[in-house]
Structure formats: structure tokens, C-alpha cells
């Protein structure tokens, strides 16, 4: 792959990510936002592949697209009476929001590009990192790995407990 093709493909995925994220934020329809978020997640996964973190890219697709996005769509359907109301979201404090958007983004980009003096080393990550992720997970990061798995189990049990159908409580009351 020549350098020009690489650059063009990078800019293509960058544009997909940024524009679909803008559509998520500026669209008034929640369903459109949710489906536009799909393209944002895929674009970010493609950027991970450019950063030679292909395992992270696959995890991104499986967890975000397969899990979180489906959860969000379930949430939209649970919390709106689909047949009765239009799925719209209102906006509030739009002027502070726009100011914050431009101030934060402009400030971050200005700092990243001009003020910060990032180091660049010669030994960048090359090719695939799947094997190195396996080694790191089972050696240096084995304790955080186990802890995060227990945390995820607790969080899912807690979520199922919170969102359960609570008919038994009403039967006890009468």
C-alpha cells in the first residue's frame, strides 16, 4: 500500500467518524442518533486498525456495536411509547453548549498542535499486537484483569436487579 493510498483511506475514515458523530449530536431524532452512532463506532474501530491495535478494533466492534448500541436501542424502545409520540429530543442551554463545544475543541486542538511537544520514538508498535496483549494480560495485568471481570459481573447482576419486573412487591402489598 503506497503512502498516498494510506493517507486517503485514513482521511476517509476520519471523515466518517467525525461527521457521523456530529450527526449523533445534532440530530433531533433519537433513532437516527443511535444508527449514526453505529458509523461512529465503526470509524473509530478503523482508526484503531490504523494504530496497529487490531485486537482493540475487534473488541470495539463486538462490545460497542454488538452490546452497547443494542442496549441503547432497547433503552429508546423501553422509554418511548413508540406508537404514540415522536422520538424527539429537546435541547436546553444551547448557547453555553455551543460555546463549550468550540472552546473545548479549539483549546484542545490548539494545545495539541502548538503548545505540546510530544516525543516521537523510533520503536513504534508495528504489525499486530494480539500476541503482546495476551502476554501482558497474563503477566503484568493479571490482577486488573481479574478485578475488572468481577466488576463487570457485579455490574451486570446489579443492572438486571435494578431493571427487573417487580411484580412480587405489589403482590406482597395487598
Amino acid at each position, binding site marked *: 500500500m503506497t*503512502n498516498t493510498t494510506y493517507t486517503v483511506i485514513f482521511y476517509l475514515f476520519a471523515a466518517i*467518524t467525525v461527521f457521523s458523530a456530529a450527526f449523533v449530536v445534532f440530530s433531533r431524532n433519537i433513532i437516527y442518533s443511535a444508527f449514526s452512532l453505529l458509523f461512529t*463506532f465503526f470509524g*473509530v474501530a478503523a482508526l484503531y486498525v490504523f494504530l496497529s491495535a487490531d485486537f482493540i478494533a475487534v473488541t470495539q466492534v463486538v462490545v460497542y456495536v454488538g452490546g452497547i448500541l443494542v442496549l441503547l436501542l432497547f433503552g429508546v424502545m423501553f422509554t418511548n411509547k413508540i406508537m404514540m409520540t415522536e422520538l424527539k429530543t429537546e435541547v436546553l442551554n444551547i448557547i453555553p*453548549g455551543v460555546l463549550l463545544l468550540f472552546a473545548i475543541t479549539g483549546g484542545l486542538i490548539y494545545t495539541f498542535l502548538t503548545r505540546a511537544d510530544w516525543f516521537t520514538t523510533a520503536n513504534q*508498535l508495528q504489525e499486530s499486537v494480539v500476541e503482546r496483549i495476551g502476554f501482558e494480560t497474563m503477566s503484568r495485568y493479571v490482577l486488573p484483569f481479574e478485578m475488572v471481570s468481577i466488576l463487570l459481573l457485579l455490574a451486570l447482576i446489579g443492572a438486571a436487579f435494578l431493571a427487573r419486573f417487580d411484580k412480587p412487591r405489589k403482590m406482597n402489598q395487598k
Partner: protein
Amino acid sequence: MESFSTIGLNHYLVISAILFGLGLFAIVTRKNAIVVLMGVELVLNAANINLVAFSKYSGDMEGVMFSLFVIVLAAAEAAIALAIIINIYKTFNTVDVSSIDSMKE
């Protein structure tokens, strides 16, 4: 034009800054709690791009491992937040974050 045609660290940092700003905008301005949650996901994705980019250009694995943990925590956060939103909807019959202003029914 050299800085535009050769993809470096700064390109990823700019993308993540834009995603972060958009996510923050969604958190601040939207009334629907689910769209606020989408904004949180955008912010987490922006942070993840930064972590992986710094990991690539410094040549060690800390950023990649940390972004894996961030993805796991994002999944846990989305599940808990949606359970809470469903409970709020059962109680108040709305998910409009500006009209939820009492701690009990």
C-alpha cells in the same frame, strides 16, 4: 503539506478532540437521558483513541491495555445507566433530565 499527507500522532489527537467536544455538547444540551448516554460513549471513545495513539507512537503497551479496560468499564456503565433510566421512566413516566427534580415519587 507534509504535515497533512504524512499521518502522525497529531491527526489522531485532532480527531479525538473533536469527538470529545461533540460528546460534551450532547451531555450539556440534550434533554433525553439516552442521548446524554450517547454523549458519554463519544467522550469515552475519544479518550480511547488518545490512549491507543500514544501507545502506538511511544512503542509500549500501557495505552492499549488501558483502553481494553476502558471498553469493559464502558459496557458496565451502559448497562447500569440504562437500568437506572428504565427505573426513572417507571417512576416519572419520562426520561427528560430537566424535569426529574425530586428524589422520591
